[in-house]
């Protein structure tokens, strides 16, 4: 089965993240992002007959999709929770396309939202993490990515300034994004490297900042795509892969399941890395971008460090990367952080990225990443001339 050109993104909703929730609940943010996306698609709520939702960590519960659908007043013919962490946003897009291609529904609302909650309020994890990781202080995502970075430096000689360059270039684009959390001043490699060391070798400015926010997209089939008020952004290829849950048991710390997910997506699209006008790789940490670009085939394995030094990753550069600022500058509103890579790619391909518009943007590579390089979802998106 192929999902090539079977469905397109025609509507985007995205809230400006905030550090403090104020009076907001996750459900309110979800409703706001959903309303935006449906209106943006030129549709009515009644047109939405498919619903894919991410459960907010801040408001967890079983049977979440029906509860959220009821709150939003939806009557979906297909509904599900997508629970693959930071890959959930990208994962929703191909699941929506598959449901549409299978004639289960015509217009799918994909939505994620969350509040900023930290530390000991984190949601319950699978029992194996509680039993074999937490007692040793492997809590949260920082430690795992630090060990990936450490091993990458050991195996390939990757240097701290190479990782820092990712955050620096993405900040250049964030300065042109009114929605970004950190968009008021540029960042230098020295500033990244002199920011506080949190988990060796990762500094504060190489780590996402949790924020409150929400994001949604509307995915439709060819018939509704023709009526879209914007250029439709077609799904050309998709791939997904997962090799582990805890990084401790990953077959490799430096080679990820992106190899399989990206290869599958590129093969379905009949395209390769060199065809892409821009890339939106998941960026919870700087090292994540290096490993993703390597495993997706943008450069040789282990050459991610030199590769990002040789290319300008800003919106005006030769390899525009996370032109919304990435999560590193945009902020990470829970699962909506992973959706931000989808919304930005769609915005660019629709030609609606304002001052940070990439010239002649036609094809984008999007990668969602859950857990500690665990779940990987790759998408190839296209704007037709």
């Amino acid at each position, binding site marked *: 089965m192929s999902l090539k050109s079977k469905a397109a993104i025609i509507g985007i909703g995205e809230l400006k993240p905030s550090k403090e929730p104020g009076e907001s609940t996750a459900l309110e943010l979800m409703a706001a992002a959903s309303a935006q996306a449906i209106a943006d698609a030129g549709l009515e709520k009644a047109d939405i007959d498919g619903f894919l939702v991410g459960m907010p960590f801040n408001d967890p519960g079983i049977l979440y999709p029906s509860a959220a659908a009821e709150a939003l007043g939806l009557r979906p013919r297909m509904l599900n929770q997508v629970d693959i962490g930071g890959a959930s946003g990208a994962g929703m897009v191909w699941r929506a396309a598959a449901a549409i291609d299978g004639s289960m529904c015509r217009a799918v609302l994909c939505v994620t939202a969350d509040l900023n909650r930290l530390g000991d309020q984190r949601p319950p994890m699978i029992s194996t993490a509680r*039993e*074999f990781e937490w*007692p*040793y*202080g492997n*809590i949260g995502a920082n430690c795992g990515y630090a*060990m990936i970075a450490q*091993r990458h430096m050991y195996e390939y000689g990757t240097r701290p300034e190479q990782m820092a360059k990712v955050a620096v270039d993405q900040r250049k684009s964030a300065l042109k994004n009114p929605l970004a959390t950190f968009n008021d001043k540029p960042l230098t490699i020295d500033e990244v490297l002199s920011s506080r*060391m949190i988990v060796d070798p990762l500094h504060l400015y190489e780590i996402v900042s949790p924020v409150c926010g929400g994001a949604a997209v509307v995915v439709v089939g060819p018939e509704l795509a023709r009526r879209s008020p914007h250029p439709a952004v077609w799904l050309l290829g998709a791939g997904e892969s997962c090799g582990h849950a*805890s990084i401790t048991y990953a077959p490799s710390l430096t080679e990820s399941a992106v190899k399989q997910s990206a290869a599958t997506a590129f093969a379905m699209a009949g395209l390769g890395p060199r065809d892409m006008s821009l890339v939106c790789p998941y960026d919870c940490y700087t090292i994540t971008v290096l490993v993703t670009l390597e495993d997706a085939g943008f450069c040789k394995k282990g050459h991610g460090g030199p590769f990002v030094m040789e290319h300008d990753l800003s919106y005006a550069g030769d390899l525009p990367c996370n032109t919304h600022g990435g999560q590193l500058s945009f902020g990470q509103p829970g699962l909506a952080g992973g959706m931000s890579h989808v919304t930005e790619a769609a915005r660019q391909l629709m030609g609606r990225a304002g001052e940070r518009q990439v010239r002649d943007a036609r094809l984008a590579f999007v990668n969602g990443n859950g857990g500690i390089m665990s779940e990987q979802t790759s998408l190839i998106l296209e704007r037709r001339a």
Partner: protein
Amino acid sequence: MNAYLKPVPTPSKISAPFWAAARRHKLVLQRCERCRAFIYYPRPRCPECLDDRLTWEEATGRGTVYSFTVVRRAASRAFSDAPYILAIVELEEGPHITTNILAAPEAVRIGMKVTAYFDDVTPECTLVKFKPADA
């Protein structure tokens, strides 16, 4: 004496022999009778071949540091005594294990040889940590 406030494991039916052995300062691993794979963490079936004939064998307690980090600021208040060294150790038998290295942060290197050290953190619980083999 201060109470131990960090998370401690709650052994399951499957993992109880592992934690009981740690209590006796022994490192034991499951081994698959069919494909002979060593297994960590304890599982209901062999993750290589899904056979359920698993036995417990004592491991050498020797390994090498596969990767590590110095956690200077922990995500949980229970670890507010950071810095501490979190590591993945590759055991001589093959499996990887999340653990702590008891050493000065600047002394730890990837590839360094380490040996098991049993830390009796509470009267009921012993964690399997590691220290440099030459220490």
